């Protein structure tokens, strides 16, 4: 989407649920520039999100109203004293969206978010299908150990041996617990998740451990080249999904042997993540199609072809970019970049919670 027109500048008054929903959807629009968000409550819901994006927050709306570069002032406070105050202080060229008009816009935004969430959930479940057989394998082994050992204990009188079997059962049960935890993490609904500062490496590690269920790491070596302290912002669930899809694809492409390299770096305000495999590679012809929904070269029932489509959708949503380089027979590298944010430690956040 490119146009030569200057961006539309917007101020949002009200950082409660409504203001936050507006803010969140405007963040994804390339031609909207947010001047700031105001709320009487310094701990308003939307402030955290605004700060993540370096959008000024304030408890005194006057400055935002007076600003002469503002094109549109959106008032979602519901405060009856505000409209006359805005009218009095705003620049003559600024338009105001408030009252019922603002409510209608909000309805639309919330409806759209709802639909997106539904779509995302169903796509996620679809891609979960490819994990199913791998998961069955990883669960059936420990399950077999548990059942057989328990049966053994019933007929065993030797205390030492009973203890040994109990240990085996315990360890096997722990493995199933770990798998179950990973799956529920993965399927857990993302609808209520807010944008957060995401610890990149924690998510990459989580994705690696989940992808293990898709294909057992046979002779695949994993190399990590992480640059410390990188953070991006988004819904952890979605970023995790991006990594899982790319890593799963890489593992699939390597069939049995190969090496998977994951590296992260930082430059010019961007965080870069590269995921490389030494697998089959992608033909020039297919390279055009891999991001299309339902394009898959995998056997029926094995691939939905939604993996990379999902990846691209999510990456775009966070103003990121994705590129791919591939050579047939040699391997493939997917490169992601996202706007970088400073890693937030809970302490720092508390200290800097008051801004002009």
């Amino acid at each position, binding site marked *: 989407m490119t146009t030569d027109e200057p961006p539309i500048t917007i101020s949002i008054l009200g950082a409660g649920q409504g203001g936050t929903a507006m803010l969140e959807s405007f963040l994804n629009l390339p031609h909207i520039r947010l001047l700031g968000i105001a709320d009487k409550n310094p701990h308003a819901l939307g402030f955290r999100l605004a700060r993540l994006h370096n959008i000024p927050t304030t408890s005194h709306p006057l400055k935002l109203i007076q600003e002469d570069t503002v094109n549109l002032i959106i008032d979602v406070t519901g405060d009856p004293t505000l409209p006359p105050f805005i009218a009095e202080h705003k620049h003559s060229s600024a338009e105001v969206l408030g009252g019922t008009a603002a409510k209608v816009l909000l309805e639309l935004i919330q409806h759209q978010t709802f639909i997106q969430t539904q779509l995302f959930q169903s796509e996620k479940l679809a891609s979960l299908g490819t994990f199913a057989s791998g998961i069955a394998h990883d669960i*059936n082994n420990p399950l*077999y150990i548990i059942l*057989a050992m328990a049966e053994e204990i019933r007929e065993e009188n030797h205390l030492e041996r009973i203890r040994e079997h109990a240990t*085996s059962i315990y360890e096997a049960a722990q493995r199933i617990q770990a798998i179950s935890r990973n799956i529920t993490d993965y399927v857990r609904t993302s609808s209520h998740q807010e944008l957060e500062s995401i610890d990149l490496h924690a998510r990459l590690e989580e994705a690696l451990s989940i992808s293990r269920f898709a294909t057992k790491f046979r*002779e695949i070596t994993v190399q990590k080249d992480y640059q410390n302290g990188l953070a991006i912002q988004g819904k952890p669930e979605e970023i995790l999904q991006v990594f899982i899809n790319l890593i799963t694809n890489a593992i699939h492409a390597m069939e049995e042997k190969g090496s998977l390299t994951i590296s992260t770096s930082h430059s010019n305000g961007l965080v870069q993540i590269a995921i490389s495999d030494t697998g089959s590679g992608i033909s020039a012809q297919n390279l055009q199609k891999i991001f299309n929904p339902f394009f898959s070269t995998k056997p029926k029932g094995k691939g939905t072809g939604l993996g990379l489509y999902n990846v691209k959708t999510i990456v775009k949503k966070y103003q990121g970019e994705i590129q791919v380089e591939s050579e047939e027979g040699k391997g493939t590298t997917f490169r992601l970049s996202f706007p970088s944010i400073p890693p937030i430690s809970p302490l720092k956040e508390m200290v800097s919670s008051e801004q002009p």
Partner: protein
Amino acid sequence: MAETTAAMFGGHKTNGLVLVVDDEPDVRKVVRMTLEKAGYDVIEAEDGEKAIQEVQKGENPLMLDVIISDIRMPKINGVEAINYFQQQYPRVPLIVLTGFPDMEMATGFLKKGIVDYLVKPVEKEKLIKSVATAMEKRDLNRL
């Protein structure tokens, strides 16, 4: 393993000698427990490569009655190992024991002449019955 080898050459009579190939020690242990109770001797290998070594060692190929193998393992995987055994030791019946319920794969294997495709968790009785069937086949092959 030394124990069973000793048992093998110690001349005591058992129902037969079974090689169990699986990358998980506890799975091998469970299979061993079940089969030893049913009167078999058991030797173990943790992957296809070790299994091949184990079989080639000493008189094992001659004495070996049944091979039970998983199909997803590191190094030489079970499928490769099974192909190898079928070529090298066509007389030794094979049983696949896997956590991977895949009908397509199962039919493929059964067509190739393996005795059974068992999915973990397998019941004791089923495993023993399957090994007994394999033993019958082994006896037929020997004739």
